[in-house]
């Protein structure tokens, strides 16, 4: 199943019926740091392992987590510029919905609209986006977690991971029933998973970023406060050492 001459355009099938440009775009997402989302009983928590390219980078300037609306936000996995464009588009869609219907856009509809947009780039002469968004939303339809990937596919998840460490992360996430724990407890768990999947050999400098939308934040999507984040990171780092030894 060689890609041969059929991998240069998204609007070209290979003889086996593959659209290689979409598969390559998904690889671009997997080349970046791990991003996670978990859907708990009282909200949704997002976390990301940001790989820092140089000591000179201002650590707080390079965010991967963005609010979409008051009650929803997302984390970008994969290429940051492509991801920022998707965030911009998603913000427009959600504001249009609010303007038209007068209510916050439910997570299901927001992700559907984004995926329709992303899908267009997988059938026409443009290249697909090399970024995936993990979308967290807490509107009238309750806590929702969606993954919108470069193929335009979207599913609703209990927990999701993308990026370099996604396989190991998924294995760890499957062990926990997030629907029974609170966001605060889940934060410790995802900090542990992010430390566990981090590759110390290849990516020495990194930073963790967390955000959530919960009952405690009055269903407002915000960055996790520094003190809580630091506590979770310390706990997570210790717990992760347990995983790595196994």
């Amino acid at each position, binding site marked *: 199943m060689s890609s041969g001459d059929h991998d240069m355009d998204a609007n070209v099938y290979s003889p086996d*019926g593959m659209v290689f440009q979409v598969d390559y775009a998904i690889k671009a997402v997997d080349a970046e740091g791990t991003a996670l989302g978990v859907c708990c009983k009282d909200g949704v928590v997002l976390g990301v392992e940001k790989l820092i390219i140089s000591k000179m980078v201002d650590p707080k300037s390079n965010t991967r987590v963005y609010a979409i609306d008051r009650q929803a936000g997302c984390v970008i996995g994969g290429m940051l510029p492509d991801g920022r464009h998707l965030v911009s588009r998603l913000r427009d869609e959600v504001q249009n919905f609010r303007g038209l219907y007068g209510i916050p856009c439910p997570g299901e509809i927001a992700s559907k609209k984004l995926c*329709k947009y992303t899908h267009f780039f997988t059938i026409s002469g443009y290249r697909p986006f090399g970024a995936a968004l993990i979308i967290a939303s807490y509107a009238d339809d309750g806590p929702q977690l969606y993954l919108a990937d470069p193929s335009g596919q979207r599913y*609703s998840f209990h927990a999701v991971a993308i990026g370099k460490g996604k396989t190991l992360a998924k294995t760890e996430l499957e062990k926990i029933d997030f629907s029974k724990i609170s966001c605060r407890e889940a934060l410790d768990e995802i900090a542990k998973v992010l430390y566990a999947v981090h590759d110390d050999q290849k990516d020495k400098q990194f930073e963790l970023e967390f955000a959530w939308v919960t009952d405690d934040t009055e269903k407002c999507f915000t960055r996790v406060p520094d003190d809580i984040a630091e506590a979770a990171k310390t706990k997570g780092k210790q717990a992760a050492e347990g995983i790595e030894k196994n």
Partner: protein
Amino acid sequence: MSRSTYDISVFSPEGRLYQVEYSFKTLTTEALTNVGLVGKDCAVVVAQKKVPDKLLKVDSVSHVFLVTKEIGINVCGRVPDGAAILDDARQHAGEFHEKYGYQCDVTWLARRLGENAQHYTQHAGYRPLGNISILFAMEKDDMGVSHPKIYTVDPAGVAIGYYATATGQKDNEVKQVLEKAYKKDMTLEETIMCGIQSLQKSLGANENSLTAADLQISIVTADNPKCRFVDATTVEEYITKIVERD
């Protein structure tokens, strides 16, 4: 390899459209099979259901949707392409209703979707969508009598009505089983059981291994033309009846 295959939708010297042929290879992407059958006064679609990831919310996985309250669609192939086609179908049905003041019938919709699909096979810059749909509904003839109808619309734009058909990975196997097992004018119960059994035989499953969780069964009937799903308990009863019958 490059001279005998063509990357945009132009004719080869033998008069074939390779990109269209390649798009048919995508219909087995998810390794699912679906069966559509027409009974005396019912239309039934039995769709196989698989949840690809343990962390997925099971309710978010569906391949059968409502286009209008009375027309159902089963999509099969690339998931995002199926979502795009579902959206187009809903759009066309909605526009028809707005323009003419009554709901479109399934024959019209199937041909309209076929027209869309054909457009992608001829228009440079797009690839054919990797999806085959089964549309099903009760349709009134000129005398006002309702008849059940099933149409398939494939990536080449062919929209044909059937008494019984199958799409997906084991489509040919199911069709062979149906040619022997299908009878016209079956009752609702017989039609559903015929559908389940033809799927079981083609998947190579022994009688007990397909459960309600592996199937999505949706129906329309003359006494209730609204498209609806058969609940899990009833599906289990049908599966048990099939076992007892044999």
